[in-house]
């Protein structure tokens, strides 16, 4: 029996012992983990995350935050679970890489502030670096459902690391790839095709969404500022609880340009922030 907590204004947060439905190996570093968690999937909104613990006990001790990658649905379209795009970084991500179907994972969510889903005629341009792709699958679905045109600027070290691009193409997302070694799309960082597209966009209103390594997000935020675009970033701060309890996940924001910066919790105020609020020098 999962524990759930319902409230007036937001979907219930549930703690589910989620069975592993599938674990798809993408490369040495990446895998997609499918988890049975209907309660969480039902309430999840684009950009939200879950806190996972791959096994009971004290090693590892704390849960870790992961974006909800996709929502799984049954034949009737009812949510049955969710997937995680997992990149190996340490203890927990290493265990999630090796976990087998039939085992289970403690999964708490949905958590955090979701993306604002923009309407046409504004276009949505998503900018992803590596595992920063994770929050954009559900966002693309929501945008497309509203008829908003979606482009994904997707960068990685090399072609082989551009996982899951096909799934976005199938959704009808336009894709502009870049690789550091030039093996697919533009050579260089993802900001190369992005900057070019922004220059050439003419009168089209664009809402940017970015997730990836901090230097990438900083660069995207700068481009957004230069071009007067609204830009939402999804930050990946270290999180102890994901619930606003520990104050570990803070990020410095300024409410007004030149205002006094202060720390806010990225698990509850975020993980999605208006890039213009972030004090980028300190991230």
């Amino acid at each position, binding site marked *: 029996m999962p*524990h759930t*907590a*319902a*409230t007036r204004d*937001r979907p*219930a*947060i549930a*703690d589910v012992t989620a069975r592993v439905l599938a674990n798809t190996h993408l490369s040495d570093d990446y895998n997609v983990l499918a988890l049975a968690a209907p309660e969480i999937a039902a309430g999840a909104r684009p950009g939200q995350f879950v806190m996972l*613990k791959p096994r009971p006990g*004290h*090693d*590892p*001790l*704390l*849960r870790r935050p992961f974006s909800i990658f996709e929502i799984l649905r049954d034949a009737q379209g009812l949510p049955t679970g969710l997937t995680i795009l997992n990149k190996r970084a340490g203890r927990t991500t290493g265990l999630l890489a090796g976990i087998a179907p039939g085992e289970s994972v403690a999964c*708490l969510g949905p958590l955090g502030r979701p993306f604002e889903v923009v309407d046409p005629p504004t276009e949505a341009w998503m900018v992803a670096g590596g595992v920063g792709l994770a929050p954009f699958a559900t966002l693309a679905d929501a945008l497309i459902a509203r008829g908003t045109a979606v482009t994904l600027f997707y960068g990685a070290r090399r072609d082989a690391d551009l996982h899951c691009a096909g799934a976005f193409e199938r959704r009808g997302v336009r894709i502009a790839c870049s690789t550091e070694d030039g093996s697919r799309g533009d050579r260089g960082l993802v900001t190369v095709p992005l900057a070019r597209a922004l220059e050439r966009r003419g009168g089209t209103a664009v809402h940017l969404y970015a997730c990836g390594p901090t230097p990438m997000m900083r660069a995207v935020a700068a481009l957004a500022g230069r071009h007067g675009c609204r830009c939402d970033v999804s930050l990946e*701060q*270290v999180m*102890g*609880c994901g*619930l*606003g*309890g*520990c*104050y*570990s*996940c*803070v*990020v*410095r924001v300024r409410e007004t340009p030149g205002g006094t910066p*202060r*720390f806010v919790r990225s698990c*509850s105020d975020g993980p999605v922030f208006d890039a213009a609020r972030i004090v980028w020098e*300190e991230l």
Partner: protein
Amino acid sequence: MADLSTAVGPLRLANPFIAASGCFGYGNEYADSGLVDLAALGAIVVKGLFLSAREGHPPPRIVETPAGMLNAIGLQGIGVRRFVDEQLPALRARGATVIVNVCGTTIDEYCEVSRVLSDHEGVAALELNISCPNIREGGIQFGCSLAGTRDVVGAVRKVTRLPVMPKLTPNVTDVASFARAAEEAGADAVSLVNTFLAMAIDVETRRPKLSNVMGGLSGPAIRPIAVRMVHECRQRTRLPIVGIGGIASAGDALEFIIAGASAVQVGTANFVDPFIWGKLTAGLDAYMTRHGVARVADLVGSLDTSPQART
């Protein structure tokens, strides 16, 4: 269902399980998100409060260690006045038993924060934080000296009728002498332990993993040391004790209670499992029923250290 109520000196609690300071925000976070019924907890200790707001240390503020974690939050907080205005009314409305973790850089500040809180309805007790290892000027200089402990406790004692409970640091040679000092200065109870001063190094960069260099170790790793300290205080003072350190199950809590704690606080484990509170009360209830224990008080300090009878 067994009677889980307990008393910490003048403070009556519905059960012995208290959310530890700094590990439960201001409490309202957990109620807002619908996760926890605050009235079902023995009490909550809200995040440490100074007179004014503090912004805390830059991230990284935490790092996981074996069966534990380091934190150097640096007591980010909204200050006592905003607390009583913005947070306390909702806590009262929710039926929470509210203990406030009182911080100060001077004895006057401890007194002033305590006065503000005493002037408002809805605060059940004051926990004096003289043990935060993460900020130089905030408490630990009092908590590591017997005279400092006596001075802070004695001064706050004069300005409030609320129960006063200094929170002791484990970073001392003889913690029981601090419990005695608190007792002499008029404390109603002591809580222990706060975190152990510790550090972790990123060997690839040869830099500390926390921006503050050092941080406080909490979590299951420290539990055996904390239990020992509660046992020592139980033997050398009559002051009620609130046990803290690495509690993650009813069994862990029972170790503290049997060692001499009248109630316990849970911090780190609540990060891992925000639904822990129901499991703790259910586990304690099952234990008391199984062992035929009528009241929590019958367990407190019931440790039998006589040499084992062998047959």
